[in-house]
């Protein structure tokens, strides 16, 4: 479907780049694996460890980060020729902080339980290096639409890693997924005597380190990435 729309746009305006050209697709797909913010750039580790004990808060965190990255990339990119270069970091910070506060306020109003659990970590999105990194490295020098794609890609790259970590931590640590008791269901299927023990290590941040380490190991052995 995407190729169809792309062709149409090409026919109409030959000199305009396709809506989702190869280069633009790369903006989204690169951060998923080859240039993943967590596993390759090793940014945003703090929140990856802190919020991932259960899937549901992790999901909210992931959506919040995607929202903040995309919106701040857009705003900074729109303003990129207006922002005085001497105060650009403060301007970026002010815009990110505003967006994060908005997310926090909305959570407080509409998902109070999540707000109670996440408020500290949502606040810390301000200092999440992925957000500032994309603003400084990309949005300051590129057009708004490209910046949105770039932010979305980085956000997704961050999200799938923390969701993967949360999946294993909740399953092994609490025996459930999205709060649904999976272990109990398995015991129910096989018989009362079949008891799966939950692993307390997975609930503590140490568990996140181990899972994250394993993910990085698997990924690097596949892609052959080596740190220089």
């Amino acid at each position, binding site marked *: 479907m995407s190729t169809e729309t792309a062709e149409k746009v090409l026919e109409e305006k030959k000199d305009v780049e396709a809506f989702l050209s190869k280069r633009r697709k790369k903006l989204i797909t690169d951060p998923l694996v080859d240039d993943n913010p967590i596993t390759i750039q090793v940014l945003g580790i703090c929140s990856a460890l*802190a919020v991932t*004990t259960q899937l549901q808060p992790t999901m909210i965190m992931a959506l919040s980060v995607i929202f903040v990255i995309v919106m701040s990339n857009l705003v900074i990119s729109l303003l990129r020729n*207006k*922002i*005085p*270069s*001497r*105060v650009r970091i*403060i*301007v970026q910070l*002010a*815009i990110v902080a*505003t967006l994060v*506060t*908005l997310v926090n*306020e*909305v959570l*407080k*109003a*509409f998902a*109070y*339980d999540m*707000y*109670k659990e996440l408020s*500290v970590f949502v606040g810390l999105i301000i200092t999440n290096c992925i957000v500032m990194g994309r603003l400084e490295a990309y949005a300051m020098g590129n057009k708004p639409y490209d910046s949105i794609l770039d932010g979305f890609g980085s956000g997704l790259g961050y999200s799938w890693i923390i969701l993967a970590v949360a999946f294993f931590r909740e399953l092994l*640590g609490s025996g459930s997924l999205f709060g649904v008791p999976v272990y109990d269901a398995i015991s129910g299927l096989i018989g009362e005597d079949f008891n799966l023990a939950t692993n*307390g290590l997975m*609930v*503590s*941040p140490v568990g996140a380190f181990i899972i994250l380490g394993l993910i990085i190991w698997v990924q690097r052995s596949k892609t052959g990435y080596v740190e220089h």
Partner: protein
Amino acid sequence: MQQSNAYVITFSVVLTIILGLLLSGTSEVLKPIQQKAEALDTKKQILGAVIPAEDIEAMKPDEIDAFYESRISSMVVNIDGEEVTEVGGSAITAESVDVSKNYKKAPEERLYPVFIFHAEGGPEDVASYIFPVYGNGLWDNIWGYLALQTDVNTIEGVTFSHAGETPGLGARITSRDVQSRYEGKQIFDDSGNLVSVDMQKGEGKDYSGEEHKVDGLSGATITAVGVNNMLKNYLKSYRSYIDKIKEGNQVALN
């Protein structure tokens, strides 16, 4: 690109004004919804001390409000157990008393809300007394609600919340598993001294025969001590009120 100082200052001022307006605007718009969410959360915590958490989860916000209206009556008492209905000329209700703010005052000056769980439509037919408690954990404040049965001695149930205890360790005080350890324990000893209930050091021992001890939290001894102090302090403050209920019970028996 080199900009003049005037441009930099103007840009900063304009940006600050825009962002400031945006934030205060959102805050104003969302405030009523947020306050409603907070009030609902408090009701959930109060009810959590007397009915199972699963039942509360299953209820919709409207149902929780209705249930709370029909089953909980409340009052405010002072350290001497006397009912307080107004402060400085304005009427107060238990729901409007901020326990965390009162915690900062000296115990003698605090206001103490009491929530009474009663049978539907019969405020006289008391099922349990619910007392808010507040204290310090390891990293930040902890608080909760303690429900006592009509003998004002046996614990019906507790709920605990925390602001920043360590996930997986101290934060376990919010888990059903830990809170259920308090059920059926007693706060007075046989000779009528207030001894409260203490969480022990270490975890995994069986304290089912001991009325004033519950199993501890492995790896979270400081949080456990915080919980113990919190219960002890507030039970001490509610002591006069509890004694009054006891006297009332005696009269009713005679």
